[in-house]
């Protein structure tokens, strides 16, 4: 993501200490993770102590302090998905991407995350890529879905 985009986001919230979470969330969505230098810039521009930015960024799971891939892949490991073959789906996704949950590949294409019940039990087992839900997934169809993302 371009540095200009991040700079624009920070500029928008300059001098507003209450908007730390908003600024961090926007940067997270644009950039997929929060580099330390960017958090320093946020702290300086919004006039909050860096340790507080760090505290917020490490507290919420939305924020990532490590680089993430372009596409965020979530596989549900909740009870319903598990009963409907979530574990097999996860194994297949792990095989395709070469990642374990929590990891990101070297060319930053995919990040894989496990989630315990992502809220769509009626279409279990499910796979979510960049916020788009793919329900009633089978390992075979998961391969087709992931092929669409480059």
């Amino acid at each position: 993501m371009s540095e200009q985009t991040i700079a624009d986001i920070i500029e928008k919230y300059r001098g507003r200490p209450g908007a730390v979470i908003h600024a961090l969330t926007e940067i997270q969505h644009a950039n997929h993770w929060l580099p330390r230098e960017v958090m320093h810039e946020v702290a300086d521009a919004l006039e909050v102590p860096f340790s507080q930015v760090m505290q917020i960024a490490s507290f919420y799971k939305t924020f990532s302090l490590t680089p993430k891939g372009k596409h965020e892949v979530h596989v549900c490991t909740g009870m319903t998905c598990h009963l409907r073959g979530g574990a097999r789906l996860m194994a297949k996704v792990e095989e395709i991407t070469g990642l374990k949950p929590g990891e990101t590949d070297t060319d930053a294409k995919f990040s894989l995350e496990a989630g315990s019940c992502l809220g769509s039990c009626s279409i279990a087992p499910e796979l979510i890529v960049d916020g788009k839900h793919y329900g009633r997934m089978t390992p075979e169809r998961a391969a087709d879905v992931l092929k669409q993302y480059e």
Partner: protein
Amino acid sequence: MSGTIVQITLQIDGKEATVAAGTTVLKAAQQIGVAIPTLCHHEKLEDYGGCRLCLVEVESRGRTNYVVSCLYPVENGLVVRTRSEKVDKVRRLIIEELMAHAPDAPELVRLAYEYGADRNRFEKEAAFCVMCGLCVRYCDEVKQKRAVGFIDNGHAREISFIPEIAAKECWNCQECFAICPTSYAQAAYLLTEALAFPGRRKKESTPREAEEGRMANIPAVPMTFVRRPPAAKPEMAN
């Protein structure tokens, strides 16, 4: 009434106390010499209510409640009991839980003796930090440096020195070491230093300095024991 401070009268362990409105029960008790144990309270810092050790039994209008005295404001006719069977039981449990993290912290050992707490009741999880937040709040409120803060959440929450700030501020302060009940603040700082900006250390004293009592904390290692090529002498940060 305007201009005068409203006085509140309450009873603490059978003793009458008259204090200004807005005072906490803990401060009122301290004023009349009733001791209530605390871990996270510090007179220079805002009341925090983190450790829950200062829990007391309060009776007001016929109702009995259990509240943390460091946050509970006084009210007229309040009856406070700082040592009841139930209060002691809760304090004992808190001490036992904290001792799973910091079994040898002097303050906890003393409290465990007083309350008959069993230091081995819970499986040990040596985190050494009891999350009192004293270092974090002291650095923020008194020193206003914010070199140390909480990171992460839930069971993974811990204190963390921010290397960028700690490298500049901590060496000449180190005041949080003394208020930490477990010495963990010191350990966390030294670990951060070792990882992020190593090189600062107490200076070795020359034999002459040692004799004069200057810089005498660390005796110089006799050169025969040190195999250090003169060219690769590590640079000392100032």
